[in-house]
């Protein structure tokens, strides 16, 4: 995936000739300040961690499907501490759970959605030669990667990796083995990287738009990334602070989160005391709720681009979409305590948070409706990106709708911390965001590499994934309604767990099938780098600015300075011969 310097014709350099000579390999591909290289670095790193995080879950699913059974082959390889006699130890189960969540959210989805797609696409879509702060961009990746490595190395700590959930609630996390300290340190690095990146995005979008590119002519993808950047910037600091406080509780003898008089395993805990476990929860969820919008918004942005392009008509309700996404951004800061309804919350607070939670569901409904309405009257091409983008819609609908019983306190009494929650958020982020990200990969791969992915393999990848993923997550709602708690090493301890144990087998086989379904994608991804059909600038006949640049773009991106003449989705304009009028083409 080289960022090639040669382009079709011309003198091969973008309008801003910096007058520098060819960079050495390590500055071109390793410590690069080019947003495209950095975007690819983030994307590839994230894809590796998505696969790793998924593998952790596939391992965990063995224990859930066949509790107490030794795992053939792999069981012995993982060692006697994690899998004594090939049977998973409860501590290892908890590590797999905590690390799956942490890795998928912070090392997988967000780095791909924001670090990968954001970095690569946003400057191109606004007609900029790079981000506003290219060196800061490089620093943010190189702070992120050590954080990832530290996070994964925590599996080798004494006592294993973090095992208190991705939510790391104290006092449990405060007294957990050393792997938790590594989790905290890794999170500090990763959060810092996000903060640096988000500033870059905001300044870039505000300052570096091409001539004629007013805010109301920005592709929806850019609006979504702008709101996402604000969420990251404003929501992450409390969690970074809280993580440092947890580090201090663990290492420096403080008791931010430790109340007095704790007795652990029969011994009085030697701690200063006087702290509050709920303080962590507030600080954590103050980030983690906006974080879930960070997880979904870039995906919605991608879906918007792919739908407009493949329906050959403007997005329905573009302005409504923009207002909705900004409203979601604001509201996302005032719903966090719906994760804490069962902590002994008073009626005033819980009524407030229920209400804000119901309110925030409305713009999501509006966005989904706009996307579905965008299909009406279209000329729909079912390309690989479009398959993923359209499947996103009903999948996100299921995820969003199942949030309703969770956001209402009375029903949450029963459903809190059950598998219903796991089904809910996975529908939004797995067949939701991940499908949107796949759509983005199939859509922008030609721009990044100059070659097309195989559409046949793409369709196989889509259908296998779509079927498998529903087998994985749909049964979880039934498990939740039966009352099955999450994070249970052995659900068959409980009668209500035994009642839904058969579903655990279905889910696990679905997950293993889902893994196999990714093989066509992995093969396609690497094969097409060498053997994919070559493309010119605009293989999808799209209208947004990134398609004015060569495929792949050189340093500086555009051969001539782009100028924007119209709205972002002028497809099938009456009276024109072509069914698309790109933003960057003067009238013709």
């Amino acid at each position, binding site marked *: 995936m080289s960022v090639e310097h040669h382009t079709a014709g011309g003198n091969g350099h973008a309008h801003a000739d910096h007058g520098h000579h060819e960079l050495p390999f390590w500055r071109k591909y390793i410590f690069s300040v080019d947003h495209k290289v950095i975007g690819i670095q983030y994307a590839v790193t994230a894809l590796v961690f998505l696969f790793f995080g998924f593998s952790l879950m596939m391992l965990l699913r063995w224990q859930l499907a066949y509790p107490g059974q030794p795992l053939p082959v792999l069981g012995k390889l993982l060692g006697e501490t994690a899998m004594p006699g090939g049977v998973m130890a409860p501590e290892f189960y908890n590590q797999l759970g905590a690390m799956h969540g942490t890795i998928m959210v912070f090392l997988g989805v967000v780095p791909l959605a924001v670090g990968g797609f954001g970095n690569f696409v946003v400057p191109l879509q606004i007609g900029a030669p790079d981000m506003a702060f290219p060196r800061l961009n490089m620093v943010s990746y190189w702070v992120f990667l050590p954080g990832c490595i530290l996070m994964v190395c925590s599996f080798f700590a004494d006592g294993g990796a973090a095992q208190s959930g991705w939510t790391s609630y104290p006092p449990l996390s405060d007294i957990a083995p050393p792997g938790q300290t590594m989790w905290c340190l890794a999170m500090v690095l990763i959060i810092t990287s996000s903060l640096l990146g988000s500033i870059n995005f905001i300044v870039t979008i505000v300052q570096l738009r091409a001539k004629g590119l007013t805010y109301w002519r920005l592709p929806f993808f850019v609006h979504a990334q702008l709101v996402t950047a604000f969420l990251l910037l404003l929501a992450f600091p409390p969690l970074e602070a809280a993580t440092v406080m947890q580090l201090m509780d663990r290492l420096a003898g403080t008791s931010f989160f430790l109340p007095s008089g704790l007795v652990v395993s029969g011994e009085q805990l030697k701690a200063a005391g006087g702290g509050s476990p709920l303080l962590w929860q507030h600080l954590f969820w103050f980030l983690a709720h906006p974080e879930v919008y960070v997880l979904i918004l870039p995906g919605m942005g991608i879906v918007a681009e792919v739908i407009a392009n493949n329906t050959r008509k403007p997005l329905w309700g573009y302005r409504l979409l923009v207002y909705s996404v900004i409203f979601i951004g604001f509201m996302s800061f005032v719903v966090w305590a719906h994760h804490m309804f069962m902590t002994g919350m008073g009626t005033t607070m819980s*009524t407030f948070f229920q209400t804000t939670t119901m309110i925030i569901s409305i713009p999501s409904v509006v966005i989904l*409706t706009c996307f579905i309405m965008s299909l009406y009257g279209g000329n729909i*091409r079912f390309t690989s990106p479009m398959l993923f983008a359209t499947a996103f819609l009903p999948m996100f609908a299921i995820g969003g709708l199942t949030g309703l019983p969770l956001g209402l306190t009375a029903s949450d*009494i029963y459903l809190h911390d059950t598998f219903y929650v796991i089904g809910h958020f996975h529908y939004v982020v797995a067949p939701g965001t991940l499908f949107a990200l796949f759509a983005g990969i199939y859509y922008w791969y030609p721009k990044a590499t100059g070659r097309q992915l195989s559409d046949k393999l793409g369709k196989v990848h889509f259908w296998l994934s779509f079927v498998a993923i529903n087998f994985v997550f749909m049964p979880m709602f039934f498990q939740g309604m039966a009352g099955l708690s999450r994070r249970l090493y052995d659900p068959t301890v409980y009668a209500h767990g035994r009642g839904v144990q058969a579903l655990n087998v279905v889910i696990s086989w679905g997950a293993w099938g889902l893994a196999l379904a990714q093989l066509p994608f992995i093969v396609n991804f690497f094969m097409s780098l060498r053997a994919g059909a070559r493309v010119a600038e605009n293989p999808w006949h799209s209208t947004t600015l990134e398609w004015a640049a060569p495929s792949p773009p050189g340093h500086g991106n555009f051969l001539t300075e782009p100028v924007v003449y119209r709205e972002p989705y002028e497809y099938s304009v009456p009276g024109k011969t072509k069914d698309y009028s790109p933003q960057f083409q003067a009238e013709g």
Partner: protein
Amino acid sequence: MDEKIYGWWLPPDVSVHGAKIDQLMSVLHWFMLLLFIGWGVFFVYCLVRFRARPGHVAVYTPVKGIATKYIEAFVVVVEIFLLFGLSTPVWLSYKNNVPDAKKALHVRLVAEQFAWNFQYPGKDGKFGKNDPSQISGDNPLGIDPEDPAGKDDLVTVNNLHVPANRPVIVDVSSKDVIHSFNIPVLRVKQDTIPGQLISVWFEATQTGHFELACAQLCGLGHYRMRGDVLIDTPEEFAKWQAENAPPPPGEPAAAAPEEKK
């Protein structure tokens, strides 16, 4: 214990306040199904009707969103009803209608890694003070031996006996990490937070043998933090209390209390 009552949906509700919760669940899921099928039908219709084929073109002029405005308004109205007509009243009535302290059975719960320690006040109706420094294997709640009120207290572990048709108020806390007191058939869930004493109440409408499960990850034994919930008739309960009460001071110990560990 009857396993047959546990299937793929809500287990039977044996509580006084649960019917309204179950009703909310039902209304919610019908509403969700209605929306999903409504959107879904339109969605599939669009995919089929507007698929690309020879001679077919897209329409540039957007469809006027009149129907959509009504649908959005309908969704908003239903959500307002769900929030203010169902959920909030149910939640408020549960939280605010705490039973009369004189009629209710009081129980204290201190959760630990990985067991549920219950304390019942004896005939004096008073709980002995809990002192963390007094916690030991025999004294999981750390009842202060100097406190006369605690001498007749009954302690059980992983075993909650309650009478049917009488309100029960459980004051929950934890001695180490956050656990969660969760009895699905009673529609009860309350996080037990160290450093805090939180009250939760319920009233059982049926006798039976049910389960208590921890609903907050609390360590490697989280999965086996199971308790038995035995809802007795008032007579059975009184008999159980009498049989298991600690002996008055000075007399030889009676039979060991039921299910110490």
